């Protein structure tokens, strides 16, 4: 197992470096922040002082080297907006998004497995067709529209849920529902398809010929084999959750890292943007490695090649 994980980490290192470099360049490209943070009437001296304080007067290469040095210590400098340490801000906002994302994925996976298995077990029934149509629709709904309609329906019209904020359990419902709807729809279809394949496989026939009950066939034999494609899609969806989080945090005012990034872009707060992006990119890489590790755990053929 461990050599496998180690290998994956090495191959992930280069893309990570490229992402960091890309962020550096793109952030710089968004323009000169001087005009955003200093009033129009600022004098030359004040501008020069601002530039020197934030290291903008250095040649770009020096800035780059300083940047990478800082990355290794997870020090991105201070926010232009608030003066706080950029990494502190990023680390503070991250858990809020993580909570949303993890809860969403767990609910989506559990829901998809239950509905998908149930639908695959009785294919072509009315229930199966209905759940297929439902999951296809769910996978096609624009999350922002769903959020807005949800807010309108439950908060404005019915008044049972809050429109924004993070206090109280009720305020979690709409953000998670919004974030969850597309992954749930996609995953359900994938699980159903994979289970139908698995249930028609020869090893299921064999298990049945040994007298295994339906429950055992589904949960023990078929499910494990259906896990691999489902895992791939779940991984892609998890990455896409970051996108979704941006929208959800914007609409519901959730203080997560997506909101932080958008604000940082709009306000040209380089330091915060770099810190936030690095955190996101690293967690995505960790997630991908974890998924590959799951494959290895699930399927012996991945970790031990055939020997006669």
């Amino acid at each position: 197992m461990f050599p496998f994980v180690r290998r994956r980490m090495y191959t992930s290192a280069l893309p990570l470096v490229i992402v960091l470099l890309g962020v550096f360049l793109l952030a710089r490209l968004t323009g000169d922040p001087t005009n955003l943070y200093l009033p129009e009437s600022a004098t030359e001296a004040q501008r020069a002082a601002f530039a020197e304080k934030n290291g903008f007067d250095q040649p770009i290469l020096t800035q780059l080297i300083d940047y990478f040095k800082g990355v290794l210590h997870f020090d991105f400098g201070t926010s232009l907006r608030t003066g706080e340490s950029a990494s502190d801000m990023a680390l503070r906002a991250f858990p809020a998004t993580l909570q949303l994302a993890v809860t969403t994925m767990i609910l989506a996976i559990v829901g998809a497995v239950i509905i998908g298995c149930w639908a695959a077990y009785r294919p072509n029934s009315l229930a199966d067709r209905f759940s297929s149509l439902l999951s296809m629709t769910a996978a096609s709904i624009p999350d922002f529209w769903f959020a807005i309609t949800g807010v309108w329906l439950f908060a404005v019209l019915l008044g049972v849920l809050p429109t924004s904020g993070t206090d109280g359990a009720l305020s979690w419902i709409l953000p998670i529902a919004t974030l969850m709807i597309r992954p749930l729809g996609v995953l359900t279809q994938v699980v159903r398809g994979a289970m139908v394949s698995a249930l028609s496989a020869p090893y299921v026939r064999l298990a049945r010929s040994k007298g295994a009950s339906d429950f055992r066939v589904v949960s023990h034999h078929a499910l494990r084999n259906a896990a691999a494609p489902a895992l791939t899609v779940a991984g892609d969806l998890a990455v896409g959750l970051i996108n979704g989080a941006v929208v959800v945090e914007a609409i519901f005012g959730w203080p997560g890292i997506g909101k932080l990034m958008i604000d940082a872009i709009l306000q040209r707060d380089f330091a915060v943007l770099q810190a936030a992006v690095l955190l996101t990119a690293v967690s995505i890489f960790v997630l991908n490695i974890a998924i590959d590790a799951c494959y290895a755990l699930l399927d012996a053929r991945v970790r031990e090649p055939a020997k006669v």
Partner: protein
Amino acid sequence: MSTQIDMVPVKPTTAIVGEPDAGRRPGRSVWFRMLVNDRVAAAAAAVLGLVFLTAIFGPMLVGDMATHIDLDNSNQAPFTLAHGWANVLGTDPLGRSMLGRLIVACRTTLSVAVPAVVISAVVGSVIGMWAGFYRGWRETVAMRVADVIMSFPSLLLAVVVLYVFSPSAANIVAVLAITRIPVYLRTARAESAELSSRVFVDAARTFGASGRSIITRHVLPIVLPTLLTVATLDFCYVMLAESSLSFLGIGIQPPDVSWGLMVSQGRTYLHTAWWLSFFPGVAIVITTVSATILAAWARIAGDPAQRWRLTVPQKRLSRFTKTGKAL
């Protein structure tokens, strides 16, 4: 993802002597018959066709209905003809007809989504097939590049790029296309790599076929159905992505209008004029659901081994799928 026909778990494996030849590629009329046979997919195709027709001809037909400002009529409710048939879906704060704006937005939305999908499909597929066929360093490099692009949240990338380079329609298309290339790259590479190890490729090589001709003549036709299915599903994703960008303010800019932008603009009027945000969203959902259904149908129709399901009248198909499990 399935139409109601995609439910049969197992195809009969016994060789039934005299079964119609499933290997020939079907002609036009057969495709049409297969489509008509599956009512749900046919409906989806009709809806999608309507959407495309609206995108092409709609703006011409509605004239200036979408831009005609009429402040006397602002924020009128839908489902009543009291304000003229043009306003049957309501009006916006400036009195412009919702129906008209929806139609014009259709063209804008599609004029971003379709080119983005076509570009990313072509570029991604070509590179993927090439990388998968030759393997070696080409494959590694292509996959690493795909990894880099895929591991970055596309929305963020789009926001940053568009912020830097200003959100024109062309830039949006370019950004969306680039972020979607890895999807086609990975699919094409995987299939191409699997095919390149098959015997018929070696056979082609033995009589001197060049790599490129093998790819074009052997690999491409086999990979094409999968790629088309992926493209149709990707179309949904790109539409949703463009809507999200416009919603965030970094996509289509006023005075142009897209469905995503309309949802965003209607947000502040949620309490008073719910239809401003509602209808554009419905339009998006209808289009994307239809595309998804059509993609599922295309997957069955494109696979010679599964095609038979679409040649049976639906009523009779249920007889084949009755499980009657004995064990």
